[in-house]
């Protein structure tokens, strides 16, 4: 048994240890499927909760996560996803994507995990930064008005690389 009882300094968790200061995380969100939206959101949220400066860069289909028209309406499909372990033909039946999406949304809600727009609210409330990709915006003919108000800007890939200097990076 270890005892710290005889020490004058209490044993306290090192929440603000200097070696953990200044850590940065950049997450590139390139997918617009419901199931592929969550990994980035969960990791961003976890990083912010650990005091890590976190930037999310939305590109290509990831734009659906921050487009006001689609953000709350991402879908999950069985098609092309062998991990459902069901015959692929089932996925093509009309209404199947709707059903699969509803089931996944319910499973997520049962864990008290928010839907995508509310999750992004929480990430921004925690100090996270949202950025949109310039080329994707141009391709999809979208402007800042089409995106969530808390997206800090539509920026080029070079700008993103510059502002995340020294960051750890995740591509999803």
């Amino acid at each position, binding site marked *: 048994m270890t005892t710290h009882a005889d020490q004058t300094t*209490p044993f306290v968790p090192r929440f603000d240890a200097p070696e953990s200061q200044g850590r940065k995380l950049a997450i590139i969100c390139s997918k617009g499927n419901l199931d592929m939206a969550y990994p980035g959101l969960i990791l961003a949220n976890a990083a912010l909760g*650990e005091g890590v400066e976190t930037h999310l860069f939305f590109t290509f289909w990831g734009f659906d996560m921050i487009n006001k028209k689609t953000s709350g309406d991402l879908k999950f499909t069985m098609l092309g996803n062998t991990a459902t372990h069901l015959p692929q033909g089932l996925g093509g039946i009309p209404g199947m994507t709707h059903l699969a999406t509803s089931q996944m949304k319910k499973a997520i809600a049962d864990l008290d995990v928010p839907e995508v727009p509310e999750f992004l609210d929480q990430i921004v*409330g*925690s100090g996270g930064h949202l950025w949109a990709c310039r080329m994707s915006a141009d391709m999809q003919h979208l402007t800042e008005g089409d995106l969530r108000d808390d997206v800090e800007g539509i920026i080029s890939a070079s700008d993103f690389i510059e502002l995340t200097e020294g960051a750890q990076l995740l591509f999803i």
Partner: protein
Amino acid sequence: MPTTTIAGQAVEVNDEGFLTRPDQWSDDLGTELARLIGIELTADHWKLVRFLRDDFAHQGETATLRRVSTQTGTPIKSLFDLFPGKPAKKMAYVAGLPKPKGCV
């Protein structure tokens, strides 16, 4: 389990320093735990600490940041203002509870 002396009281802690016996906690100890991590507890802090204690007693696990926010009606940003840097862990520490296990 290691023990450490906080506010003149010997308490059991884990290898990170979190209290391992919720029954060893008291308001006075909570005040001292907060002071040790650089937080002076206000009424707003206490409201959250009391929720955590009460919720742990009923649920058997420490509330995540999201649960604290939704159940107490406190915006996430305020939680970060009150317990800067690592709010979920700091709150749990002050309340004498294990750090939360949930991901969100």
